[in-house]
């Protein structure tokens, strides 16, 4: 799931002619946009056959597969950029997926719905219900989002895995802004979504 704001930001982070993998590429809109605007060499992975069909029908190279399983077959640093837009929370093993992404991509762009967003907190606090909103649109019993986290949770995992955060952005529901201190309390409270550019510390040292 990629909204237009997100698409614009991700596009601005990608250099021309880059080799890009979009994990969970859906109907291929983002890859198509990047091919048109940045002349990227794109590859997608999508779990739903409908998504794959729509993507391939746009002339994109997309494999029907599962982020939890199919990243393993790619060699190290196979891509300049690996994108995981609104998908990490739907994987069975987010930590392993993150590690695999950073192995196969020189940099990774990842966006996550932020469970620490104040409206979500309010829904639990005052109404006692699982949050439902624009970025988390399905109710608890049918959502594919099985591993939701807050920006704070995500940053903690990155630290644990020795992943460096090169750039961070927050989506306040209306606009996307660059943030200098991702770990600040206010970002976690006011962002509906966090977008991060990551690289592997170990990779960059080598």
């Amino acid at each position, binding site marked *: 799931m990629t909204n237009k704001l997100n698409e614009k930001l991700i596009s601005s982070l990608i250099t021309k002619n880059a*080799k890009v993998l979009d994990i969970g590429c859906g109907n291929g809109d983002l890859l198509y946009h990047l091919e048109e605007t940045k002349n990227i*060499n794109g*590859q997608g992975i999508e779990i739903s*056959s409908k998504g*794959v*069909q729509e993507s*391939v*029908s*746009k*002339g*994109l*190279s*997309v*494999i*029907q*597969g599962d982020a939890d399983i*199919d990243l393993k*077959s*790619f*060699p190290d640093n*196979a*891509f300049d950029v690996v994108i995981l837009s609104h998908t990490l929370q739907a994987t069975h093993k987010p930590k392993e997926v993150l590690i695999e992404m950073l192995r196969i991509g020189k940099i990774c762009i990842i966006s996550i719905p932020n469970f620490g967003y104040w409206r979500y907190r309010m829904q639990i606090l005052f109404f006692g219900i699982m949050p439902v909103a624009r970025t988390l649109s399905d109710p608890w019993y049918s959502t594919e989002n099985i591993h939701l986290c807050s920006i704070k949770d995500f940053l903690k995992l990155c630290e644990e895995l020795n992943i460096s955060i090169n750039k961070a952005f927050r989506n306040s529901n209306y606009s996307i802004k660059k943030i200098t201190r991702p770990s600040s309390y206010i970002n976690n409270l006011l962002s509906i979504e966090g977008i991060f550019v990551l690289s592997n510390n170990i990779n960059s040292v080598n």
Partner: protein
Amino acid sequence: MGTTGPSSINEKKNVQYGMQFPIFTIKDMVNLQLALINSLEIDQLFSVVGGSMGGMQALEWASSYPERVYSSIPIASSYRHSAQNIAFHEVGRQAIMNDPHWQKGDYYNKEKKPRHGLAVARMIAHITYLSEGAFQEKFGRDMQSKVLSWGFDADFQVESYLRHQGISFVDRFDANSYLYITRAMDYFDLSHSYDGDLSAAFRKTKCKLLIVAFTSDWLFPSSESLAIVKALNRTAADVSFVEIDSDKGHDSFLLEIDDFYKILHGFISGAARKKGI
């Protein structure tokens, strides 16, 4: 069938080749196609598309002559024939070779041909082309007439259908060709020359690939296609893979399935756009 085969005249002896015809492989078929495009002075084929054995050829092109193809679309195929596929072929060949009229392949100038053997081979093969669901949907336990024969006539419609498939095949196919072509598929293994490392077979592959599998195809199941996709991923090749939902078995690749056509259309138009044609 094809260009030259066991039923062609061996000009040295002025008689059909029969079993004197040399064993040929999928790569030989592709080499013949290569010779054709060379003689036509075609530098690069825009797309090589094939289902089943044709898919093996499409893969062989992508592996052996990567600079001569811009895109390749192997459909319902595999990089090698599985043990089960070889087993089915072997039963078919035994049916032919045990037909008394086969005469060690020397039947061309005889009155009787190994019709029964070839028909049985085709009946067996036809079962492998469909799926359990397709058979059930098409025939169920429907009968030819309301009363059972209490014998071994074709009481069930499925029996009569298979017999028809067998008999009508005999009129358009040469039994010896059947032996040779099934053998070519059995011998196919793209990874064989690379010590079993399939990705090594695609090391030079630069063309765009679309691999298509069908959910109910148990002759060339999706897992075979996935093995190719994984090998191509290891070489970071430009590959698409889709598994089309169909209950029609291996035969799906010959049928007008909406999603399948959409995918092919999309991939081919996309490739044409990139190629600037």
